């Protein structure tokens, strides 16, 4: 007979306010195997834990049930309690009577009855608990950082500086991300490229960083401390080692100035062979397979080849997959700018001189298509410019969330427009959100520079007498207002990458309703994900400005370094295992395993004295995450999951269903 102790927690009034904890404890005292049963105000407190330890020693308890909050909250706490009293930590079962009972009803009677049911089930289950040994797994001290924008660069530098090898994987031909496209940064008006490019170069030259540009992660297997990351290196059609970045191929390309360039967001044109932008890292040419005449139609004079003195052009290059072993992964895949063409009332893509926020950045930037001159499509300097806030953000028809950076970037752009052109500038806003350090002061500064702030969401852009007319309500006056301008800049918001969901599947992270990656806890675990060893940095988790992205990248790097401070770590003992005597080797379990942890194994045995070989399923305990899919699929009852054995789970269910209703 087991000697079980049951502890019913009040959690202050969280549980006791709804559940009659004394009655539950009294009920539990009468259950089979229960030696002692108590209720207590805060069981997780030091005295609460000491009470359990004391009982274990005094009453020789061998199994413990704590009826309290969710096991996600304090299961580990109580395992430690049990362990410190000399028992195996897995001799504990937590019955969740807070989230599953007291927080979801006000009916005291029903709540108390359900709490009793759950405790009865926990007692039945804990009696069958086995002692489990926690395996020790090694930690690989290499990291993979996915995304080479400011967040990824910062995370890579911080981890590399701590002495760990980092693979920085970037999808585009150059690192730098969106920050490389920006002109000035708010609120300090630092030149974006001036503060970013040194970091890009540092990343490229860091002895601990291996830069994998124009590459994408296509598969991730393994687990924390021991990931295998498969990276596809897309063909550049240029030998990176040989290319000096001179740009002769780009000048020679027969499609030169014919293809809208990504970096200037279509405001300038490039060839099929091109250098992404002057400060690109690596500064290497790339040939765009989607437009190159040779690669698409096999019809081209291949002038790039003859122009390259170093023979670096290789139009036969193929994609190459490499595998990286890593202990941790940082996701820093960033954002995309909201595409406003669906909001036809603003005429983006229909009316000339209606541009998005990043296009304005390129227009005002000295390395941009107009060499920093703000010009309309006719090449004239605008006499007035409107900035429209909340385009695609704070809008149930598109994205409900606030994109957080648009107010500030619109005001920064208003400042630059005033400074460079002296144009009349109108900001159409709903609420100005300027809550960062120095942001409100910047708002005040821009107001003082003569920018007109109109409190009203621009409803539509009309075309009248060759000018754009912004129509809104000045809600502070309660009057309709129509302002003719020469240029309208849409304060387009930030949205998740189009392939964010695919990435989430590859990295086993979750995606929120807004499409961004979800952190493990919104307040207390902001850079962790629900997959151990995978961390988040920057705007892939939600809209962020540069300081926030850099701070989060540092936090993610610190998490990685904390993990790497260990040579080994405790693994999960609750894994699947096979009873060879029952397994027929049908291998139904193999395809249902999401972690590729199951494979066939040949075993030799003697049947009536004759040596025979047969196949059985074998679980790689290091890869198994304990999901139980295999156990459910097994037809022979051969597959079982430790700590969730068929016997334990059935005992729990039987106690719930068959036991006397309390």
């Amino acid at each position, binding site marked *: 007979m087991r000697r079980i102790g049951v502890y019913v927690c009040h959690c202050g009034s969280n549980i006791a306010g709804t559940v009659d904890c004394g009655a539950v404890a009294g009920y539990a005292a009468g259950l089979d195997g229960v030696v002692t049963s108590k209720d207590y105000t805060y069981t997780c407190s030091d005295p609460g834990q000491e009470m359990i330890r004391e009982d274990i020693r005094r009453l020789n308890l061998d199994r413990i049930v704590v009826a309290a909050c969710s096991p996600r909250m304090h299961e580990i706490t109580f395992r430690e309690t049990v362990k410190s009293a000399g028992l195996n930590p897995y001799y504990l079962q937590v019955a969740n009577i807070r989230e599953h009972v007291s927080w979801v009803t006000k009916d005291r009677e029903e709540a108390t009855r359900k709490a009793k049911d759950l405790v009865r089930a926990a007692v039945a289950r804990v009696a069958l608990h086995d002692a489990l040994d926690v395996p020790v797994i090694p930690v690989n001290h290499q990291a993979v950082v996915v995304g080479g924008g400011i967040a990824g660069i910062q995370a890579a530098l911080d981890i590399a500086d701590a002495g760990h090898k980092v693979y920085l994987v970037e999808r585009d031909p150059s690192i730098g991300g969106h920050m490389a496209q920006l002109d000035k940064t708010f609120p300090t008006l630092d030149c974006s490229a001036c503060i970013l490019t040194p970091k890009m170069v540092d990343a490229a030259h860091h002895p601990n960083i291996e830069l994998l540009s124009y590459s994408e992660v296509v598969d991730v297997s393994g687990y924390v401390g021991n990931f295998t990351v498969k990276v596809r290196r897309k063909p550049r059609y240029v030998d990176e080692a040989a290319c000096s970045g001179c740009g002769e191929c780009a000048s020679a390309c027969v499609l030169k100035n014919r293809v809208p360039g990504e970096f200037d967001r279509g405001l300038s044109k490039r060839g099929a062979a091109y250098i992404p932008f002057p400060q690109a890292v690596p500064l290497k040419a790339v040939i765009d397979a989607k437009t190159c005449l040779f690669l698409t139609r096999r019809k081209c004079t291949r002038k790039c080849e003859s122009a390259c003195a170093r023979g670096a052009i290789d139009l036969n290059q193929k994609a190459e997959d490499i595998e990286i072993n890593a202990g941790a992964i940082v996701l820093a895949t960033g954002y995309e700018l909201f595409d406003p063409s669906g909001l*036809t*009332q603003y*005429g983006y893509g*229909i009316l000339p001189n209606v541009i998005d926020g990043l296009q304005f950045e390129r227009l005002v930037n000295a390395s941009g298509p107009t060499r920093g001159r703000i010009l309309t499509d006719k090449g004239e300097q605008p006499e007035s410019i409107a900035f429209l806030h*909340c385009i695609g953000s*704070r*809008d*149930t*028809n598109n994205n409900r969330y606030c994109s957080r950076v648009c107010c500030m970037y619109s005001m920064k752009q208003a400042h630059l427009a005033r400074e460079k052109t002296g144009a009349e500038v109108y900001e159409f806003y*709903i*609420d100005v959100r300027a809550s960062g350090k120095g942001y409100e002061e910047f708002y005040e500064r821009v107001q003082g520079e003569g920018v007109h702030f109109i*409190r*009203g*969401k*621009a*409803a*539509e852009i*009309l*075309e009248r007498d060759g000018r754009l007319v912004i*129509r*809104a*309500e*000045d*809600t502070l006056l*309660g009057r*309709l207002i129509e302002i003719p301008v020469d240029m309208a800049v849409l304060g387009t918001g930030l949205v998740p990458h189009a392939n964010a969901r695919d990435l989430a599947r590859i990295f086993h992270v979750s995606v929120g309703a807004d499409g961004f990656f979800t952190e493990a806890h919104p307040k207390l675990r902001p850079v962790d994900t629900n997959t151990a060893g995978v961390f988040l940095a920057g705007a892939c988790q939600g809209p962020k400005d540069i300081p926030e992205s850099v701070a989060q990248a540092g936090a993610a790097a610190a998490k990685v370094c904390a993990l790497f401070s260990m040579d080994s770590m405790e693994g999960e003992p609750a894994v699947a295992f096979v009873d060879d005597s029952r397994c027929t080797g049908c291998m139904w379990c193999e395809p249902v395993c999401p972690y590729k942890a199951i494979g066939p194994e040949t075993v030799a045995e003697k049947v009536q004295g004759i040596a025979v070989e047969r196949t059985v399923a074998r679980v790689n305990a290091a890869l198994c995450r304990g999901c139980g899919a295999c156990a459910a699929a097994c037809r022979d009852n051969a597959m079982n999951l430790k700590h969730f054995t068929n016997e334990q789970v059935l005992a729990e269910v039987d106690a719930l269903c068959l036991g006397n209703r309390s």
Partner: protein
Amino acid sequence: MSPGRITLDDMDSQFLGSLGNHLGTKVGADFANCIQCGACTASCPSAHAMDDPPRRLVRMASLGLWKEMLSGRSIWQCLTCASCQARCPRGIEITGGMLGLRREAGRRLGLPEGMARLASTVDGARNITGDANENRALWCDDMDVRPPAVVEVVQSGVRVDAVYFAGCVASLFPAVYSIPRSVSGVLAAAGVNLAVMAGEEWCCGFPLIGAGAADGSPVNRLETLVRHNVEVVKRTGAARLLVSCPSCYHTWKHTYEKVYGAGLGFEIVHSTQFFTELLDGKRLNPQPREIAVTYHDPCDLGRKSGIFDEPRAVLKAIPGLELIEMRFHGMDSKCCGGGGNLEMNDPALSGEVAKSRLAQACDTGAAVVVSSCQQCKRTLQGAARKEKARIKVQDVAEILLQAVSGE
């Protein structure tokens, strides 16, 4: 809104909660979510004429300043075109809310004279003009192939493919007779057997909803109309009800089941949907017409019912016809001025809105502005006449019949 200080005495905190449900909208329930951005006002075709434009009405309702709000004329200047709602960043049901406020104005302060008159006209004559209801079939009296009335069909036991609900405006305003004539002409050309509701057709209820008079007391007016109309169609055993008026269509499609309390047992089809089906099935053979047209989306059909493609598909099926879109079309389409009973409440404003929309149509350079609504045709044609605009106003049915009959 009048200047001066608001006091707690003016603010009725129970007001929003008291509005209750109206035709499936929990009136004002989402007003509290308003962020006062003014996108509604700046999208509203009549806001410039309102004392209290939509944004402020939502605010006043939220604060419970109902005496001032409901006694003003602003709520009666709404075209119910749903432009505000389509662009509201908080997705607030402004149009449904406005109709609920009109009902509330009627309950608390009595309906404005014109709206009360409209309600009693429909009570008495079962149509909006007060004509003898038998006159509803005058439009088809002299047609070569006169579609039978439902009464005849029921008596003779003949099965028809569809019953045609022509609507008050098309049936009783001779200026737009040609729309129902064209609709039935096109269907006849495709060999579809049609019965018309004729004198058995009662107002669909849409104008009463717009008048804040749908409920009525002691008899629920809307329910009376719905029950009658549904029973008449049911008696014929037809599988389909054909509707050409977008407002009737919208009411049949979105309101009737809610009021009737059960499935109607027949399908509601808009004429442009029917036409598209016949064209797809090669049952119509339009002849080429070298003409440039622009299409005006009726609010009740387009923005409010989501039928954008079918009317365009009909036009594109006519060889040689060039469709030039106005800048504001589809979800962005502007009201013709004919919505929300505004023509009765404020004819000058209605005319102004129509003039503005007509100008947008003229800007395309098209020779014809095509709509699929008799009310849009009336208002746009009125504006064209007044402005001496060199643009023809036609209905999709009219232009299709011309193409089919090779006129």
